[in-house]
């Protein structure tokens, strides 16, 4: 009899995450907050900023943030495993220069682009090798490769720039879908977002990514290939960064060594703003995309309102700090509400 009741007991246990209805769980999530903030900014900007509500704003906005949206996808996965990749912007520059140098030497863009992608994947593989095989911290490694890849890019081209790209490709990078205001670059972004979303949320590989972020050791003991997973993610990050580099080059019809300098900061800001925990183990693919759009919308609204681009930097920085501090603050509030007597208890215990 006692055995029976004991067996029943776990069934009535409520899990905190599932003790509320689905709509509440979705609406109270971090992603919903970012999407809500984005919509709010769009509405406020449409009403108060002249010329913001025009289709051309949306076109340029999406063209501008396309590289951030692209790189945010693999960056999300990497940060969920608890690692970080600071070298993405340098890989953008390196692939841009590769494309430019090969094309100016007579290689067709298709082939040069393929080589640029391979170079990007190889750059990511070197990161992954140093982190997973040699066992170095990703922060230190990618600070090093941030300098290394950028140095190679600048070294290859010097202060020159390659600008003579085939018009077909540069037009394609700037083209729109049919008669709409949405640029065609959104199509590959959506496809990749779906692929990364499925990979992260619906496959064993993706569950492994979360497990690694929560506890790499526990993940290893439960049979997840921690090193292999991280290596694959860094290669993917290099590959997608190279893709962003090709897009960047064609969009501005210019391959330069210093293309996209500092882009890694915007990408990481977008990912963290989108609710991915810097400690790993928490986040989704939707949040970072919304975060990137939020930063982009804010920037474009302010630019149209004739606020200088420097204020945008301040806002990006403050948003980044505020978003992480808010997470800690909310967690602190929750523990305080959940255990109101905790503080006095410990005090008494300490005195006793």
């Amino acid at each position, binding site marked *: 009899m006692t055995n029976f009741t004991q067996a029943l007991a776990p069934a009535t246990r409520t899990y905190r995450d599932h003790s509320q209805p689905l709509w509440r769980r979705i609406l109270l999530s971090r992603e919903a907050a970012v999407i809500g903030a984005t919509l709010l900014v769009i509405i406020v900007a449409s009403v108060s900023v002249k010329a913001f509500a025009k289709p051309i704003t949306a076109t340029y906005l999406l063209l501008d943030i396309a590289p951030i949206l692209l790189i945010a996808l693999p960056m999300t996965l990497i940060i969920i495993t608890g690692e*970080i990749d600071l070298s993405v912007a340098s890989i953008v520059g390196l692939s841009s220069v590769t494309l430019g140098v090969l094309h100016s030497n007579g290689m067709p863009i298709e082939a040069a682009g393929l080589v640029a992608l391979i170079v990007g994947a190889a750059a990511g593989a070197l990161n992954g090798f*140093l982190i997973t095989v*040699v*066992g*170095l*911290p990703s*922060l*230190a*490694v990618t*600070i*090093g*490769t*941030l*300098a*290394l*890849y*950028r*140095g*190679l890019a*600048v*070294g290859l081209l*010097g*202060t020159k720039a390659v600008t003579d790209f085939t018009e077909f490709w540069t037009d394609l990078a700037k083209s729109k879908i049919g008669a709409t205001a949405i640029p065609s670059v959104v199509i590959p972004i959506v496809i990749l977002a779906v692929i990364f979303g499925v990979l992260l949320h619906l496959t064993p590989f993706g569950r492994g990514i979360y497990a690694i972020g929560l506890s790499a050791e526990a993940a290893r003991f439960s049979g997840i290939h921690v090193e292999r997973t991280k290596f694959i993610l860094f290669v993917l990050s290099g590959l997608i960064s190279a893709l962003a580099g090709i897009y960047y080059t064609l969009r501005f019809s210019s391959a330069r*060594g210093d293309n996209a300098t500092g882009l890694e*900061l915007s990408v*990481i*800001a977008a990912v*963290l703003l989108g609710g991915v925990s*810097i*400690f790993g183990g928490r986040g989704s693919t939707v949040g970072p995309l919304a975060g990137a759009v939020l930063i982009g919308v804010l920037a474009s609204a302010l630019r149209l309102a004739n606020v*200088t681009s*420097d*204020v*945008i*930097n*301040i*806002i*990006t*920085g*403050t*948003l*980044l*700090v505020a978003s*992480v*501090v808010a*997470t*800690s*603050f909310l967690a602190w509030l929750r523990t305080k509400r959940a255990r109101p007597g905790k503080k006095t208890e410990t005090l008494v215990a300490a005195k006793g």
Partner: protein
Amino acid sequence: MTALSTAPALGSRVVHGLGAFVKARETGILLALVLVIVAATVKNPNFLFSSDGFRDLLLTPSILLLVAVGQAIVIITRNVDLSVGSVLGLTAYLTGRLFIDVPGIPIVAVFAIGILAGGFLGLINGALVAFAKVPALVITLGTLYAYRGINVLWTGSDRINSSDMPAAFLALGTQSILFIPVLTIIALVVLIAAAWYLRNQRGGRELYAIGSDPVAANLYGLKVTQRLLAAFILCGALAGLAGVLYAARYGTVNSQAGAGYELNAVGAAVIGGVAIFGGSGSVWGAAIGAYLLLTINRALPILGVQDFWQRAVVGALIIGAIVLDRVLALRQARRLVEARGDLQ
């Protein structure tokens, strides 16, 4: 076992000290620095032996040395401060503005205000890191943006020119005492003070303790929050001092002054053997790392490498240094395991 008991009897303190010096992680970097200087001097004797060459050799890395010392202190506590370049830029512009807006302000006051301003910006970083319990990487990435934004907003397209600042102040940037530039002397004094504090003082040792295991340090009763705040304030103050000296050295300050210093400072510390995960390394290493980084930059063109490749060399150096550290750490761990086996 015999080796263990006879070694102290044989070794006088001098031999012991010499052995420690040869084995020290910093020695390798020092050797690399000497190698670079020798190679460049063989190619072009003016690199070392002309009076200008000698002065530049000492002078150029002095400002980075200050920033790198601050950075090393923060990294030792298992944090990082990416906002140092922006702090440097802000205080450099502040220095110029003080001379313009407050005519006749004493130079000492400008130094004090610059250091205080830097310390205050560091305090903001430290408070966010220590109280919100958020990784320093994220916080200082944010303030890197924010401080630079404030700087650009304040400066606009304006710039401080050397004619705006008194000659006595600018002379600090180029003057020498006994062939040693004033800037280098300031940097060395700071370096020695910081090294002494970290090695001999309780506060300094606690920074290492916090860096090697923050949780244990807290359980042990160390004032972790207080020490972290102090480390960040110190790092900011040193970046502030570097900003004042930047204005004195270069004479012109625009809104982009000091951009990219954070990478060089972290690079210098890492190359000098300060582990990015805290708890080990010394400010000496960071200082030598700073000298190595900037001396290589100046030596490359002499050695016939186009200066466009400088950043690639910096990157390769950083990676080489951390790989070396990893190999040394693995070897040390293996030796400890063997030693334990011997005892049993």
